[in-house]
């Protein structure tokens, strides 16, 4: 679905934000993009959305060369959720906001109505369709922005820090919506600083540091390389850190989330699979 071949990007002021990245993301994957501030994550997403063009190398999305097609064309395939929803919301009601993208793609009448209704339902905003987006909370505005992207029915979703600045419940809500979309077949690439969320939702992680791809692989493999993660200012999730010595001693299997750790401990203690039902939670 997404193929990067030695892509580089240099900003007009001469700053080299990406220095030769190679990776391949298959259709239907849920990939987390992690790395410290300034690593180049947002820049990479903008290249995917065709908002910036690689200064060297090739970036293909669904067979299209992002350097050749116009951003408007690419918008059909790649849904880009910006870090700050206020950069895109400007219409007086949520309904009009959701209709803006599909209208630009040429949809009208019944088809348009359906798209809007579906997108609103997908993010749980159906009761708010006539409300002014400005009156909603940051988390809700983020969901409006997400729905406004969904209404264009893109195959790929690229999300730039969709949970930043929200409380745990709102963050979990948004990630659950994204998970649902992923299960419906969307390919997802999501930037986040929250390792617990990564462990919980993603299958694979790309680690960026100073414009270079430091790690690329399944979560277990990536989280095992604490040395490299530390180089770009990251720590594995707490459950992983906690279980690590026991895993190395062969006492516990590899785990990623608190739930998995709990499961593993109970199983190890009882030596039986369905011990969870026996012990009080």
């Amino acid at each position, binding site marked *: 679905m997404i193929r990067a071949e030695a892509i580089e990007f240099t900003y007009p002021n001469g700053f080299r934000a990406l220095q030769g990245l190679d990776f391949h993301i298959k259709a239907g994957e849920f990939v987390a993009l992690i790395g410290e501030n300034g690593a180049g994550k947002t820049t990479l997403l903008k290249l995917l959305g065709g908002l910036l063009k690689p200064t060297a190398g090739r970036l293909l999305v669904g067979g299209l060369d992002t350097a050749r097609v116009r*951003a408007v064309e690419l918008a059909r395939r790649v849904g880009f959720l910006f870090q700050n929803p*206020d950069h895109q919301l400007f219409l007086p009601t949520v309904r009009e906001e959701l209709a803006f993208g599909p209208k630009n793609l040429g949809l009208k009448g019944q088809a348009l109505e359906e798209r809007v209704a579906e997108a609103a339902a997908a993010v749980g905003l159906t009761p708010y369709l006539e409300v002014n987006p400005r009156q909603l909370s940051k988390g809700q505005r983020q969901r409006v922005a997400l729905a406004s992207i969904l209404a264009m029915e893109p195959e790929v979703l690229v999300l730039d820090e969709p949970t930043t600045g929200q409380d745990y419940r709102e963050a979990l809500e948004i990630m659950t919506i994204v998970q649902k979309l992923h299960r419906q077949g969307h390919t997802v690439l999501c930037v986040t600083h929250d390792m617990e969320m990564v462990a919980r939702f993603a299958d694979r992680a790309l680690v960026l540091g100073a414009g270079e791809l430091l790690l690329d692989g399944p979560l277990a493999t990536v989280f095992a390389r604490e040395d490299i993660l530390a180089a770009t200012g990251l720590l594995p999730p707490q459950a992983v850190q906690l279980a690590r010595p026991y895993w190395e001693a062969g006492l516990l299997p590899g785990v990623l989330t608190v739930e998995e750790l709990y499961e593993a401990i109970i199983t190890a203690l009882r030596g039986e699979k369905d011990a969870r039902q026996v012990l009080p939670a």
Partner: protein
Amino acid sequence: MPARSFLHELNPLTKIAWSLAVITVAFVFQQPLPLLGLWASVLAVALAGKVLKEILPAIRGLLIFAAIFILFQIFLIQEGNTVFTLLPGSGFGRVTDVGLTACTMLALRMLAMTSTIPVLLATTPPKDMIVAFVEKLRVPYVYALMLVTSLRFIPTLQEELGLIIQAQRARACDLESRNIFRRLRAIVPLALPLLLMSVQRARTMAISMETRGFGAGPRTSLRTSTFQTLDLGVIAGCLFLTAALVIIALR
């Protein structure tokens, strides 16, 4: 900000006086060549003040603006001898020598006048500008602050506009349409978020100023605004030169 050149050391008002002098001279000059000289002198001042490189992007923007201005005007002036036509034989897109001179003159005048502003901003810390306004010109502090703050937010606004343009392009908003009406309509999804965010920022700023005691009583400032000998010399020089040039031009 450490003083990096004589321009940085001058009182902000001296620099404004220079700016006004350039504007006056630009208005009395009627020929492209002297105006070109005037513009060159502004750039020379920037070079001497070691800020030419810094203001180059702004100058480039002004140049583009001037070019667009020429393009719009040049076909409208029909008197004088034909220099060339866009569609030979049809008379459409006729460019005359009179039109060419007039447009070049207007564009150069605009360039000379506006180029002093980036020089001013690049060599003056906003605080010094406020203090100078308040102490020497008796401008109420609030007005001086408003003026300077709005100038200082221009780069932030530009950055924000860049992000908004990208965000709307990601929603298939066609900003490069060749259809002029569509293009005009496309301004709305860019201008509205920018406006709304600015209002939001202004509110936040008002609150943060109040929490730090803005408007609580009489103000004093750490550094005072002074005129040095250099300032007096520069102002006198500007006055003399302007007067001389005006007399020559109007003779």
